[in-house]
């Protein structure tokens, strides 16, 4: 377990949970520095096959701390507000969106691969209605996460979307009641980590890289990655288990 001022990182069997607790639900400079450190630590842990991010409080987050807003446009500004450190994690990342997920609380979720919603979710990017621009990566990431029509409505018109809408748009893949969302997300993640860890990493890598590639290049790169997996013990174990109708025991090699 790693316990910092704002973040609590706990490792379980093959997955990790990152819980953050913020004063006033606002993302501060110090929190972002801690988040960066935690993500770097997770990247070095080879026994972890998935990581869950969530707020320890009722809301995912409602905005940025004054220090960040006041200093954002200065050239010397650090740290990075773009949540690139989450994007750089090579294992599946899952975010639980709950309560008010505004501004930074929305944008941190966009940096993760899969989003699970709580039924009390209310998501919004209020910046446009305030004459401002989202600074946490939403402009780049939201259209890659959902269809462009919905993305533009959210970005340009600051519409608030509830859990039902979020599910319809594909912003979240599941919706659970607030008192069940954590437990059900754990069950969801346990299903993911029961699959071959190397396959999960290469699937993520292949899909992420495919975003920027034309299809023919993506197909070629995908095939090259399948050749890597064909040479692994887990592939042999997987095929053998399937044929013999057993549960596979993957070792990550």
């Amino acid at each position, binding site marked *: 377990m790693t316990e910092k001022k704002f973040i609590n990182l706990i490792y379980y069997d093959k997955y990790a949970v990152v819980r953050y607790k913020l004063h006033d639900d606002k993302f501060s400079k110090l929190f972002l520095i801690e988040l960066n450190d935690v993500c770097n630590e997770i990247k070095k842990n080879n026994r972890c096959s*998935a990581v869950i991010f969530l707020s320890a409080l009722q809301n995912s987050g409602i905005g940025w701390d004054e220090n960040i807003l006041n200093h954002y446009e200065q050239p010397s500004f650090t740290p990075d507000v773009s949540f690139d450190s989450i994007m750089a994690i090579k294992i*599946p990342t899952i975010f639980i969106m709950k309560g008010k997920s505004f501004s930074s609380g929305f944008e941190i979720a966009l940096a993760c*691969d*899969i*989003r699970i919603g709580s039924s009390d979710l209310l998501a919004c990017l209020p910046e446009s209605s305030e004459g401002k621009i989202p600074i946490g990566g939403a402009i780049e990431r939201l259209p*890659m*996460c*959902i*269809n462009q029509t919905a993305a533009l409505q959210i970005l340009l018109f600051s519409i608030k979307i509830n859990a039902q809408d979020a599910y*319809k*748009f*594909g*912003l*979240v*893949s599941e919706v659970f009641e607030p008192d069940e969302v954590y437990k059900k997300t754990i069950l*969801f993640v346990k*299903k*993911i980590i*029961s*699959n*071959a860890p*190397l*396959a*999960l990493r*290469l*699937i*993520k890598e*292949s*899909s*992420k890289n*495919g*975003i920027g*590639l*034309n*299809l*023919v290049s*993506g*197909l*070629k790169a*995908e*095939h*090259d*990655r*399948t*050749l890597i*997996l*064909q*040479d*692994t013990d*887990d*592939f*042999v*174990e*997987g*095929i053998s*288990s*399937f*044929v013999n109708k057993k549960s*596979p025991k*993957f070792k990550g090699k």
Partner: protein
Amino acid sequence: MLIKNLQNLKVNKKMPEITLSKRYNSLIVTFNRPNKKNAINLYMRDVLWEALELINLDKEINGLVFISSVDNCFSSGADINDFGTSGSIIASKKARIERDVWKALNYIDVPVLSVVDGIAYGAGAEIALASDWIFSTLRSQFALPEPKIGYMPAAGGTQLIIKKMPSSDAYKIAFLGESLSALRLNDFGLIAKLIEKDNILNEVDEWCSMLLNFDVNNLRTLKNMYMQLHR
């Protein structure tokens, strides 16, 4: 000319796991391997390659339809028995370069329709996703189960999901290896039409008939231009 070309194909009549037929000017590929849930073996893949070659050669063909004769089953994916039979990674790479069925399917210059009733897993889902349109019954389920056997989608799955679906559900289907329903894909606009099981053949007939309203050369040109810009 189309019928003559079909008769020249090396389709083994004793092993009709995959059949080619014609409806108006469309080529119909029917999966017919009920005892293996339409698992796509090397033979079927070779016939698929031949079919795509035929479309490239015969410019009168104006459409391609994938359909199954097996109830509640489009395809369960690649035949596991064929996994690892290429001998070496180099042989596997060589085979892919010389005969890239999946690239050929994704870049074929006629409209492609998959009519899915039942399970579309692995390569089955990838064929459907590679198609320009999917007609589906409500009971259909789409999955990429490869990570459950230590593998990953190899027929374009990781590329097609991220380009065609909202990312969270794309990663969900890819990491979990479990299915998404036709209704969920319909939420994203991936299902062109929800159809009734008993009306499948009529739907195929109507679609192939509809294509006759368009000049085939122009259709092919348009699709080529679209692919150059967007694929």
